[in-house]
């Protein structure tokens, strides 16, 4: 009831505001927007995973049956092997319950459909804007929250090297010159970096272990090998599992896998990074990055 009353009050207030503006105090087309219509960021999407719940059901069943079997076998049957069997069932059930917490909530097909539709939309926007310069991956220290990719609006000979942190907007100014404008986009790498426990240090071994753990955890590749020089970073991925498509976004941002690699390297080095080359040789994916400094 209280909710309904509050709702009707809000509608009433909105109507009053509308009436007030319609009475001639404000010109048409400049009416005040009622507070209830003001855009509010949506809370994160929560999806209940069918796979996680099946792990929970099997895990709970196994843990409970294991406990009953262990206690009954020890106290009533006095059988050590059966008690041990009960203990092993309990451990396996607990492991299933533990794993259910980390399972993806969506199936790979649904995730792939969501990612592809997002990338196709980004491709369409970038193509319509007529952007053709390759993206420069920036660390979170230069973009605010997550590492992002900056696509310059004009193909300048010099690559963007923003000194100050950029505002969290779509179109940003990154330099003092009038042509220093670019589009700041969130990439798959921006979100993948947040899955790491801590920011990797700029050493090759640390970047390698961060990339390997992320690639294995996300099921994107089996391992990563990193070789570094002052201006170049080469990452070799074993058995990469994300295919590259012919999308405009991929031309500018690189494939999702390359984007993840570039974001992590940029974050670790704290410097802008550009994807120079990306190729598949047999079961290996090679990604060449240039450090913009």
């Amino acid at each position, binding site marked *: 009831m209280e909710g309904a009353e509050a709702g009707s009050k809000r509608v009433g207030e909105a109507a009053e505001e509308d009436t007030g503006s319609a009475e001639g105090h404000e010109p048409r087309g400049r009416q005040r927007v009622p507070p209830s219509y003001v855009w509010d960021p949506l809370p994160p999407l929560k999806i209940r995973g069918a796979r996680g719940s099946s792990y929970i059901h099997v895990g709970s069943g196994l843990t409970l049956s294991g406990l009953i079997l262990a206690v009954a076998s*020890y106290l009533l049957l006095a059988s*050590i*092997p059966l*008690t*041990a*069997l009960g*203990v*092993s069932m309990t*451990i*396996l059930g*607990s*492991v*299933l*319950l*533990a*794993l259910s*917490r*980390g*399972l993806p909530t969506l199936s790979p097909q649904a995730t792939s459909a969501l990612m592809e539709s997002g990338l196709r939309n980004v491709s369409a926007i970038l193509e319509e804007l007529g952007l053709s310069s390759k993206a420069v991956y920036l660390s979170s220290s230069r973009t605010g929250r997550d590492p992002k990719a900056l696509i310059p609006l004009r193909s300048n000979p010099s690559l963007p090297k923003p000194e100050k942190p950029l505002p969290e907007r779509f179109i940003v100014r990154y330099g003092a010159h009038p042509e220093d404008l670019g589009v700041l986009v969130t990439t798959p790498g921006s979100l993948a970096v947040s*899955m790491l*426990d801590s920011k990797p240090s700029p050493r090759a071994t640390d970047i390698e272990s961060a990339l390997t*753990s992320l690639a*294995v*955890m996300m*099921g994107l590749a089996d391992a990563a090998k990193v070789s570094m020089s002052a201006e170049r970073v080469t990452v070799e991925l074993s058995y990469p599992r994300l295919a590259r498509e012919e999308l405009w976004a991929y031309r500018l941002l690189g494939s999702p896998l390359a984007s993840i690699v570039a974001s992590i390297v940029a974050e670790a080095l704290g410097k802008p990074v550009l994807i120079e080359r990306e190729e598949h040789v047999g079961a290996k994916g090679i990604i060449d990055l240039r450090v913009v400094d």
Partner: protein
Amino acid sequence: MELASKYILSLTLAYTLTTVTLSALSENRLDLYISMYALEYFVFTLLHSPFNSRARKALDAIGFTLFAVFMLVVALKVLEILYGPLL
């Protein structure tokens, strides 16, 4: 096959083999079974890492429990050696 499925399958296989082998050898020491399970748990968890942070926290909790049980088994064995059979 994904990582979690591989891990569960390997652990189940290892526990089955341990239980069958030790019971076939007429082993009647429960502490031996539990020690073997704990050892296998740590080995297979390490081999199939990394898991994501939420799963890893829960797996760490199981690991701590198994380690505590294992330490209890060891402590009881030491006491048994020092002071003779306890039970």
